[in-house]
């Protein structure tokens, strides 16, 4: 670790991993509720478990991004962070707000939560992924602005690199797009139209810039390949991302009441959306093949390569699978979407967070890399989680194809719940694979506590 203030990333990473555990536990609860409907009812109903599962994911990924920014920006800018104290204060504000929100979800009926948190003043709640109370949303904006101030000031006073610039662009984009969560028009078409400006333009837009910047930073460090080479790749990737991803938003506008031309534009541009992920995979493997040093942190290299591969599969291939309008006419909102969501989020954003955590945590603990024993354990965690998510995706895809056939293609279409019942075998398989994922996560976390002969930091 070159700058003392980089250490503020540590609590962010620790909290992110704790929330990751919560996300997986609630995922397992709702996975079980798919096949055992009354499980934990009425204490944790399905809609609440789902809300905690998805919200915990979003918050821990944001925590991870912030930690990543606090770690890599000072090193790239070659200067200390503008205000480490502000970073720590924001960490506690964000964590407490996230904790209180989850407590609210779990202890108070959602309608009551909306009432007591002032949703009447400016109705923003009740929409998928943006269920947070108004107060939490306002808190997120305050934290995001203060965080961006801190990061921007650091970059302004130091060296400006392509990585810092792309990261900053992504983080500002993230904050700006979140503002659309406050716009909740009565017209349902308009509501969904702008809702996607948060959801889609985050994950298939600005988050990809953050992903590219973090991956590029780690690849420079672990491969020793010239910065110029990596930066050129980064520019190509973000250009491809924005060119395909922005108009690619149209793949969400097929059936919500928007004009029909979105079926053409959405199909064409979203069919191109795998290209940046293709480039990212090629980039990661190309850099590792051309490496000029053997970095002792093999686990971080594995995570970096895994990010490219799994993002390409989850976001690229499984996205393409149901993105063309004539296909989406049948598959929209089925388990095929869930399959895509699981592998895309894991492959792109979970893995890139674990990549930077894997790279930075040993350095923040005073060593270049963890002991061999610790790294082997971490790699076991990698494989258990990654293979599990592949199978979760396959089982959900199978459930989705079955659902489409029974519910939408068949001459005698089945009602939704009957079709779900037919897919129960796949839901059971998904649940057991989820248990293996949890085991992988525990193994991964255990690797942090395994000692052994460590390589000292340079």
């Amino acid at each position, binding site marked *: 670790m070159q700058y003392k203030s980089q250490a503020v990333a540590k609590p962010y990473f620790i909290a992110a991993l704790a929330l990751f555990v919560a996300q997986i536990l609630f995922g397992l609860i709702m996975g079980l509720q798919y096949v055992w409907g009354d499980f934990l009812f009425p204490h944790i109903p399905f809609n609440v478990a789902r809300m905690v599962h998805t919200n915990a994911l979003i918050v821990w990924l944001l925590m991870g991004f912030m930690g990543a920014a606090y770690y890599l920006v000072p090193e790239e800018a070659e200067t200390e962070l503008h205000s480490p104290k502000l970073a720590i204060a924001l960490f506690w504000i964000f964590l407490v707000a996230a904790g209180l929100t989850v407590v609210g979800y779990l202890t108070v009926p959602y309608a009551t939560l909306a009432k007591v948190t002032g949703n009447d003043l400016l109705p923003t709640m009740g929409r998928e992924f943006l269920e947070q109370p108004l107060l939490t949303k306002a808190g997120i904006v305050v934290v995001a602005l203060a965080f961006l101030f801190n990061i921007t000031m650091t970059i302004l006073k130091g060296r400006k690199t392509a990585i810092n610039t792309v990261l900053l662009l992504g983080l500002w984009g993230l904050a700006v797009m979140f503002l659309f969560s406050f716009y909740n028009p009565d017209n349902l078409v308009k509501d969904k139209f702008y809702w996607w400006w948060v959801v889609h333009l985050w994950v298939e837009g600005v988050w990809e810039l953050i992903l590219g910047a973090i991956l590029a930073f780690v690849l420079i460090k672990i491969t020793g390949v010239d910065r110029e080479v990596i930066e050129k790749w980064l520019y190509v990737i973000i250009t491809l991302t924005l060119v395909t991803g922005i108009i690619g938003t149209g793949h969400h506008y097929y059936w919500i009441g928007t004009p029909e031309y979105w079926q053409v534009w959405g199909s064409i541009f979203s069919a191109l959306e795998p290209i940046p992920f*293709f480039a990212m995979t090629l980039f990661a493997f190309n850099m590792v093949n051309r490496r000029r040093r053997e970095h002792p942190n093999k686990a971080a290299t594995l995570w970096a390569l895994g990010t490219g591969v799994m993002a390409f599969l989850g976001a690229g*291939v499984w996205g393409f699978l149901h993105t063309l309008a004539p296909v989406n006419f049948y598959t929209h909102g089925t388990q095929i979407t869930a399959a895509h969501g699981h592998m895309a989020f894991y492959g792109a954003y979970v893995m890139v967070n674990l990549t930077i955590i894997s790279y930075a945590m040993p350095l923040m603990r005073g060593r270049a890399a963890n002991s061999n024993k610790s790294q082997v354990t971490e790699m076991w965690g990698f494989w258990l989680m990654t293979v599990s998510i592949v199978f979760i995706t396959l089982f959900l895809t199978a459930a989705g*194809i079955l659902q489409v056939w029974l519910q939408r293609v068949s001459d005698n279409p089945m009602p939704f719940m009957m079709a779900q019942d037919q897919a129960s075998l796949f839901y059971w398989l998904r649940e057991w694979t989820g248990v293996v994922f949890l085991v992988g996560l525990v193994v991964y976390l255990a690797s942090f506590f395994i000692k052994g002969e460590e390589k000292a930091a340079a």
Partner: protein
Amino acid sequence: MNGTRPADGQGLAVAAESLYLANLLLAPGLAFAAIAWLWVTRRAGAPPLARCHLDQAFFVSLWGGVLLAVFSAAFVLLGGLHWKWTWVLVILYFTCAHSALVLFGILGLARAMAGQPYVYPLIGPRRG
């Protein structure tokens, strides 16, 4: 561990791997015709690196065709189009097989761009 100077035959190696991917993703058949043409006309005098990638791209494309078309068609013929499990199996099989072939192709292209030889897992010819 390579420098910046391209290795002997690197251009041809990259072309072969790119055409392999194009055959899977952009222009099936047409891109394979281009690989076959390169394999027939350029293989004999090509440096070892280019020969390795040409062989891999040519033979794995053939294998890929068999794996994707023949097996999928066989599943449809055996199960029939009006059986739900045919669709579950064919879509899952095709997606997984196609994705695996593409991923191996990306690894092959990355190796070619780094001036290194590459053998596709399981179906790549072992002798260069």
